[in-house]
């Protein structure tokens, strides 16, 4: 069951050359419910819903893969570095503990 979620891939600096190492941040709007908190009004448990795994793919090659547990904040941010290696596409795939799979991609165009 795929749901539309707001997500964003940011690359810093915006203009980069081939072979440069750039900062990549990935942000998602996700509740990241731990399953131990209660709704304050109804006193009912909020069921667990958190991101399980995040994978960074660049031109079909896996760069980084992460196993995520409950303790990340709501609307998490994942920031790492990446080496630019020619024109291509960066795809981030993220999976939920409820089986929700989503994807976000960004084109990469090095200049010079």
């Amino acid at each position, binding site marked *: 069951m795929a749901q539309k979620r707001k997500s964003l891939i940011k690359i810093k600096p915006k203009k980069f050359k081939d072979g440069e190492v750039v900062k990549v941040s990935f942000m998602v709007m996700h509740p990241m419910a731990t399953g*131990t908190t209660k709704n304050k009004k109804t006193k009912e448990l909020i069921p667990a819903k958190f991101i399980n795994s995040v994978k960074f793919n660049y031109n079909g090659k896996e760069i980084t893969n992460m*196993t995520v547990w409950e303790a990340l904040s709501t609307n998490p941010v994942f920031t790492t570095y990446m080496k630019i290696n020619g024109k291509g596409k960066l795809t981030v795939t993220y999976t939920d503990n409820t089986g929700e799979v989503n994807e976000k991609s960004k084109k990469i165009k090095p200049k010079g």
Partner: protein
Amino acid sequence: MMQRRDFFKKLGVVAAVSAVAPVMSFAGDKPKSKNAMSYATAVNAITGGKTPKKSAKVKLKVPEIAENGAVVPVTVNVESPMTSRDYVKAIHILASKNFNARCIDVNLTPANGKAMFSTRIKLGGTQEVSALVELSNGDFLIATQSVKVTIGGCG
């Protein structure tokens, strides 16, 4: 008449009860998570019995006092050339007193170019945050810092 000695004894008992009581009720109310894991078992599961070395190569950046435990920024920087022979294999972020000590496991490759990871985590209370780093030659490095949390964020 109450003796000075007795007074202090009573004071001690009252203090002990009031200190223990809220902790007990807190623990009783909490539903257990499937993924609950203590800090020691988490470290053991990652390292496979090896003891991680403390190292200055791992730079952990966490605020010493976090006003809000729900959003605590964590940055881990590791000095490494990141070549195919010598690189950082994985970065694990652990929180010692969360019900699940493991926060995130990041598996890096030489294609990252730089061994750095940053995110935001939830902390249930004042505790220690540590970064456990696995190198490509099988060594484990660790860096730890205590964080004071004013408002807990793990509910």
